C-alpha cells in the first residue's frame, strides 16, 4: 500500500505527538539521568480523541502475559516474491522509513528491535493486564459502546495460564470486558475444556466466535460465527476466524472431532448473512496471520476491516487492500504479549465507511497507572505459583529473545539445553513467535515457563536419518516462505543446534535447503542421528518437560554468555531486503 498525502500527514502528526515534538516538557515516562537519544513519552501520548461513530478496540496474542514484559521485535522478518518490502514484512529502519516514524520515538522502540537493550532499559516494560486495562478504560471513556475484540492466543503462554488450564486468562478477558474473541492456542487445552471456558466467557458477555471450526464428519459448526452489535445507530457485525491450521500446527488429538481450514466459502456466507440482517459494518476478527488476512481481503466481499493476530506483526498503520468489488478492506495486526492496543475509529454515514482513524498504541507500563481491580485479579492468579516462578535459575550477560525468522538468542540456549539435557547430536526447537525477551541479569523459572509452556511440552529423543532431518527443515521452510500466503501456517523457521545449513527461501519445496552439515560433517542421508526436540504434535510423549530441561541447564551453568544466534547462510535474498537487518 502507498500512503496517500492525508494518511501521511495524519501519521506524521501521531508520530510527532509520540516523539514529543510539542516540547511541553511534561512527560509520562522514560525520564532518566544520562544521555540517551531516546525521546521521553509525552504526557498526551494516550490521549486519543474520539472520531467517527463506530469504535473498535483490539489486541491479540497476549500469550498468558498478565504482567508487563519486554518483547524484542524481529530483525529478520523476510518478505519474498510479491511481498518483498511490503508491510508487515519490514524491520528496523526500513519499518521506520515506511511509516515515517522518528528514529528515537517511543514508537520506534515499540515497533522495532533497534538498540533494543538500551531502549528497553530506558522505556521499561510493556504490556501487563492492569496497564492494558487502564488504556482500554481511557479509550472507552471517550467512546461509550466501543467494541473490545481479542484475536486469540490469550489463554496460553505463562505458568498461571497453563496451570489453571486457561482459567486465569478467561477471568482476565471477563474483567477487561472483551466483547468477542477467537482462538488458536486456546485449543491445546482440549475440546471439553475449550467448551467449558467458552461457556464461562459467554456467561459474562464475551463471545467466542469461530466460523471455520466444524465437526470433522458432519461439517456442523462448533461455535457461533458472528455477532451483531449496534453503535450509535450503526449495526456492526463481528465474524470470527480461528487459526485455520490448528489441527496441523498443534496436537489435533486434543480435539479429534474438530476440523478447521480457511473455509472461505462459508466465511463469505456468514458475511452475506450478517449483511442481510442489516450489518452496515462487517469486521473480521481473525487469527490467520497478517499476510493471510491480506489474502482474505483480496478474496472476500463486504468486509470493512480485518483485525488480526497470529503472526505477531504489529503495524503502525492499517493496510488498505482492495476486495473483488474494488472496495477497500482495512487490515491491522496488534502485535503480541499485551504490547499494543489498536484503536480504530470509523466514520459511517448512509451505510458506508467514509473515513477512518487509527492508532496502534504501545502499552508502556511506566506510562500508565495500573488498574487496581485488574491488578488484584492478576495478583490472585499468580499467588499460588509465585514462589515457584520467582526462583532465580541463572544469569545472562546479553538479551535473550526469540522472535525472528531464524534462531534467537533464547532458542540458542534452549537448543543447547536439549542437546546437553537429552544427550543428542542435533536439537530442534519450534519457531514459535511467543515468549517475552529477558534483559541481561537474572533469569527466573518464570522466564523458562514463558518460553516453553504448553500442554505438550514434553521433550523427545529419537533417531532420525539425515534425509528425515532435511525433510523437516524443508517442510517448515515451505510453510513460512511459501509464495502463497494461504499456505502459511505461521511461526518462524525451526530452531536448530548441532547442524548448519544454507537456505534459499525463494525456491520451491525440497529445493530450499542445501549444504547441510551435522556435527561439522556433511549430512549423510542414510545415517541415523540422535535428535532432541519438544512439542511433538502427533502423539502424547513422556519425556521431561522442556521447561525443566531449560531451567536445569541454567541451574547447572549459572552464568551464561549470550552470543550471536546462528543464522543459516542465506541465498536468493539480497542484503538490502527491508525485512532483514543484520
Amino acid at each position, binding site marked *: 500500500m502507498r500512503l496517500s498525502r492525508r494518511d501521511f500527514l495524519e501519521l506524521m502528526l501521531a508520530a510527532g505527538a509520540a516523539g514529543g515534538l510539542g516540547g511541553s516538557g511534561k512527560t509520562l515516562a522514560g525520564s532518566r539521568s544520562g544521555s540517551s537519544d531516546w525521546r521521553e513519552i509525552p504526557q498526551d501520548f494516550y490521549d486519543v480523541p474520539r472520531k467517527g461513530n463506530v469504535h473498535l478496540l483490539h489486541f491479540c496474542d497476549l500469550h498468558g502475559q498478565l504482567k508487563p514484559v519486554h518483547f524484542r521485535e524481529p530483525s529478520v522478518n523476510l518478505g519474498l516474491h510479491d511481498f518483498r518490502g511490503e508491510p508487515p514484512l519490514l524491520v528496523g529502519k526500513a519499518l521506520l522509513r515506511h511509516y515515517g516514524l522518528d528514529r528515537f520515538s517511543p514508537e520506534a522502540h515499540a515497533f522495532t528491535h533497534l538498540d533494543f537493550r538500551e531502549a528497553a532499559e530506558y522505556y521499561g516494560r510493556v504490556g501487563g493486564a492492569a496497564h492494558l486495562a487502564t488504556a482500554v478504560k481511557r479509550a472507552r471513556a471517550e467512546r461509550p459502546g466501543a467494541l473490545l475484540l481479542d484475536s486469540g492466543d490469550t489463554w496460553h503462554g505463562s505458568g498461571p495460564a497453563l496451570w489453571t488450564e486457561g482459567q486465569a486468562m478467561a477471568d482476565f478477558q471477563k474483567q477487561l470486558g472483551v466483547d468477542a474473541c477467537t482462538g488458536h492456542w486456546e485449543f491445546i487445552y482440549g475440546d471439553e475444556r475449550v467448551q467449558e471456558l467458552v461457556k464461562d466467557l459467554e456467561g459474562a458477555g464475551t463471545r467466542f466466535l469461530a466460523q471455520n471450526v466444524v465437526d470433522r464428519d458432519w461439517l456442523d459448526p462448533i461455535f457461533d460465527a458472528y455477532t451483531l452489535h449496534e453503535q450509535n445507530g450503526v449495526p456492526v457485525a463481528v465474524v470470527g476466524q480461528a487459526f485455520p491450521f490448528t489441527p496441523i500446527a498443534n496436537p489435533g488429538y486434543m480435539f479429534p472431532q474438530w476440523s478447521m481450514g480457511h473455509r472461505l466459502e462459508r466465511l463469505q456466507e456468514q458475511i452475506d448473512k450478517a449483511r442481510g440482517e442489516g450489518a452496515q459494518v462487517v469486521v473480521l476478527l481473525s487469527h490467520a496471520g497478517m499476510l493471510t488476512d491480506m489474502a482474505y481481503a483480496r478474496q472476500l466481499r463486504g468486509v470493512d476491516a480485518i483485525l488480526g493476530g497470529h503472526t505477531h506483526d504489529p503495524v503502525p498503520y492499517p493496510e488498505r487492500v482492495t476486495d473483488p468489488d474494488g472496495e477497500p478492506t482495512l487490515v491491522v495486526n496488534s502485535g503480541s504479549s499485551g504490547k499494543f492496543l489498536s484503536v480504530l475509529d470509523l466514520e459511517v454515514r448512509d451505510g458506508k465507511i467514509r473515513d477512518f482513524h487509527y492508532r496502534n498504541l504501545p502499552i508502556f507500563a511506566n506510562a500508565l497507572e495500573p488498574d487496581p481491580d485488574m491488578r488484584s485479579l492478576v495478583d490472585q492468579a499468580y499467588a499460588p505459583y509465585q514462589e515457584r516462578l520467582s526462583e532465580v535459575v541463572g544469569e545472562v550477560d546479553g538479551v535473550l529473545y526469540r522472535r525472528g525468522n531464524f534462531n534467537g538468542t533464547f532458542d540458542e540456549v534452549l537448543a543447547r539445553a536439549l542437546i546437553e539435557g537429552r544427550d543428542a547430536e542435533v536439537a530442534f526447537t519450534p519457531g514459535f513467535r511467543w515468549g517475552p525477551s529477558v534483559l541481561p541479569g537474572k533469569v527466573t523459572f518464570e522466564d523458562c515457563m514463558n518460553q516453553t509452556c504448553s500442554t505438550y511440552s514434553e521433550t523427545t529423543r529419537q533417531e532420525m536419518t539425515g534425509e528425515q532431518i532435511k525433510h523437516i527443515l524443508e517442510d*517448515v521452510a515451505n510453510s513460512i516462505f511459501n509464495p502463497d500466503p*494461504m499456505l502459511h501456517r505461521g511461526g518462524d523457521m525451526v530452531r536448530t543446534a548441532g547442524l548448519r545449513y544454507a537456505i534459499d527461501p525463494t525456491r520451491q519445496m525440497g529445493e530450499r535447503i542445501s549444504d547441510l552439515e551435522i556435527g561439522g560433517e556433511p549430512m549423510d542421508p542414510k545415517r541415523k542421528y540422535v535428535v532432541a526436540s519438544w*512439542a511433538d*504434535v502427533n502423539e502424547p510423549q513422556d519425556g521431561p518437560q522442556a521447561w525443566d530441561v531449560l531451567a536445569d541447564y541454567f541451574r547447572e551453568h549459572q552464568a551464561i554468555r549470550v552470543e550471536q544466534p546462528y543464522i543459516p547462510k542465506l541465498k536468493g535474498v539480497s542484503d538490502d531486503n527491508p525485512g532483514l537487518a543484520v
Partner: protein
Amino acid sequence: MNPQQVDTQRRKVLSGALALGGISTAIGLGILAPSRALAKWQEQAIMTTSLEEGLSQALGGSSYQESDKVQLDAPEVAENGETVPVSVETSLPNVESITLYVTENNAPISAVFELGSRARPSISQRIQMADTSEVVALVKSDGKLYGTSRQVQVTVGGCGG
C-alpha cells in the same frame, strides 16, 4: 488397547456392516452396478504399486482428458494424512465409474466407485496419503476417461506461532 482405539474399532465394524447391508439396496435402486458390485472386488487394481497397471485393470486404460466438468474437492493441506476427506462430483453424462488415485502413494489407486445408471455421480471418501501428492479424480463417461487433479500437502506439522 486404549478405550479410544476400541471405540475406533467398533466404529469400523459398524460402518462395515452398514456398507454391506446397503449394497443390495443400492443395486435394487440402480445406484450400484449389479454385475460388478458383488462380482469382483477390484483387488488387483487397488493393491498394485503400478499406476498404469492399476488403471488398466480397473478402467481399461490410463490416459484421460482434463475436464472442468469433474469437480474435485480436497484440502490444500491435509489435517491428517491418514484420513484426507475428498469429494468428487461431475456433470458428465452416463457415468460408469469414479476413480481416485494419489500419484505419490506406494499403492496409488485409493478407490474405484462403479455406479449404476440411476446414481447421481457424486462421491465422498477418506483417503490415506503418505506424502504431499497430486490427487486425481477420473470419471468414466460414455466409455471415455475425464479427469482433474489437485495437490494436497501432507506436512510434518507443528511449529505454529
